[in-house]
């Protein structure tokens, strides 16, 4: 069974990709995900300078969701370039997540990683905008436009994906802004803002007080976002991201119009074995349903569009 797929001009051996933020800060970890069956990886978000991130507690997990406020730690772009080169030895796409606290920073980081061999760039739009007043780039279509234009002009012909936030009243508005500004594709979605308390200790759990919700609770929200984006943008490549644990979760995304999915939070519970399990279960599903390929399933006309 052929489960390869195209996402824009990237060919993937399967529609299961490592999501950004999940142990993607070092080449050996990226290689581990690729060797474990991920068809591509998205790195942790890279900024121009080194960032420490937040002190622990930075993570909380319940059966239905995780919430994190890691604070985007990283070694800075100069020291990360070597990791991109070394992660590329398996001939699977390495997509680098780029961040910035200014529009110029997004552009300069994207230019550097593209030159070092990144196969694509994913723009993390959920970064704090230092010139703004505590807002993030990702909730303002005009800022998205400017960041995407800057990144697109910096990376030449490498594909650019905009990772959108679900913290918005109009996901289509954000997606349209990104695509009109030149984004080749979208990743939907980043985490939902949330917070959690420990009522025995009467304290917020995260050192940053609030954070981003991922996992099962994010899943139906993310599936809807993909659906809304697919309706508004029939031909744009879309990665579905949010709460993929079982193949049924991935199928939700494909039925909503995603070309491929990114897997993140479930790795903490299922380990890297999750990629091979998803691949096997997708093949089983397609065979049972009589499809000749993943492509046939995903291109099938659906009445909800």
């Amino acid at each position, binding site marked *: 069974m052929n489960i390869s797929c195209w996402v824009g001009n990237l060919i993937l051996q399967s529609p299961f990709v490592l999501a950004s933020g999940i142990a993607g800060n070092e080449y050996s970890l990226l290689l581990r995900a690729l060797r474990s069956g991920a068809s591509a990886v998205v790195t942790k978000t890279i900024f121009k300078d080194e960032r420490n991130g937040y002190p622990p*507690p930075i993570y909380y997990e319940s059966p239905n969701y995780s919430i994190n406020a890691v604070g985007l730690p990283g070694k800075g772009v100069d020291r990360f370039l070597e990791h991109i080169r070394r992660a590329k030895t398996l001939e699977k796409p390495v997509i680098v997540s780029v961040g910035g606290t200014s529009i110029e920073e997004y552009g300069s980081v994207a230019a550097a990683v593209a030159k070092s061999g990144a196969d694509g760039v994913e723009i993390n739009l959920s970064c704090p905008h230092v010139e703004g007043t505590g807002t993030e780039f990702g909730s303002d279509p005009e800022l998205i436009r400017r960041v995407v234009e800057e990144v697109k002009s910096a990376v030449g012909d490498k594909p650019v994906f905009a990772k959108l936030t679900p913290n918005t009243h109009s996901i289509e508005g954000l997606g349209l802004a990104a695509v009109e500004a030149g984004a080749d594709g979208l990743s939907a979605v980043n985490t939902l803002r949330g917070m959690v308390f420990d009522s025995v200790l009467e304290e917020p759990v995260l050192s940053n007080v609030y954070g981003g919700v991922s996992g099962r609770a994010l899943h139906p929200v993310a599936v809807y976002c993909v659906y809304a984006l697919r309706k508004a943008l029939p031909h744009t490549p879309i990665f579905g991201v949010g709460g993929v644990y079982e193949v049924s979760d991935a199928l939700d995304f494909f039925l909503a119009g995603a070309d491929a999915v990114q897997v993140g939070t479930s790795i903490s519970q299922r380990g890297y074995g999750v990629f091979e399990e998803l691949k096997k279960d997708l093949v089983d599903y397609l065979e049972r349903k009589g499809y000749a390929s993943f492509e046939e399933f995903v291109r099938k006309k659906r009445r909800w569009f």
Partner: protein
Amino acid sequence: MWYHHYRVSSNTQLTSNIHRVVLESTDTPISKAKAGEFVMLYIPAVGELPLSVFKQKEEELHFVIEDYGGPSSRAVNLHKGEMVGVRGPYGRGFTLKQNTNYLLLAGGSGAPPLLKFVEEAQSTPGVSVTYLLGARSASELFLLDEARSMGARVMVSTDDGSMGYKGLITQLAEKLLSEATYDALYACGPEQMLLAAMSLAKRFGVYFEGSFVRDVRCAVGVCGLCVMEGTGRLLCVDGPVFSLHELEAAQHGG
């Protein structure tokens, strides 16, 4: 449950910067930890720190905590009655096999997981344990009677010679390895000491496991900050105890 809640029942100073802190469960205690496995201790409004479990009874958790700055400075000052959160146990601990002659190297605050190992080894057939504790001077040595009472042969090294062997713990280990045969060398302490112990084990052809330290934050294999560089392994889920083989694959990008 993410945090299991505990109340501090005692805090005893062992050396100038090392304390023994005992916690008592107020709801459900965490499940049994093996020697070398760790928990995250959450001190409200202060932060979290990774700690290896030193002793564990039904409702009780014992830690030996060193003040190395950050939340640990607060942890050594926890006072009776304070409430804390504990999550875990996490990771993989030391392997314990029957009929094995173990040489254990504890550098300073690296003692707790190895003392727990001594305790576990007591009830394992055919196991003999030599426990070495190294420090700069006699005033920094602690819990020697604990190891003795559990049946281990105990030896100490001090840099200044104020007690036991004068020199580094790895020099004492080298001496012992050339005098007698050991099946396995286990170590916990500063990275430099671990690397020296590892090369000793290699030289003498002895099986090695070491408990390492990295920047542990999520503890569940997500954030990636505790990567053992070049190995594709995360300290929080694949460690903190690694064998020589696992770390050597490291050098070759495996």
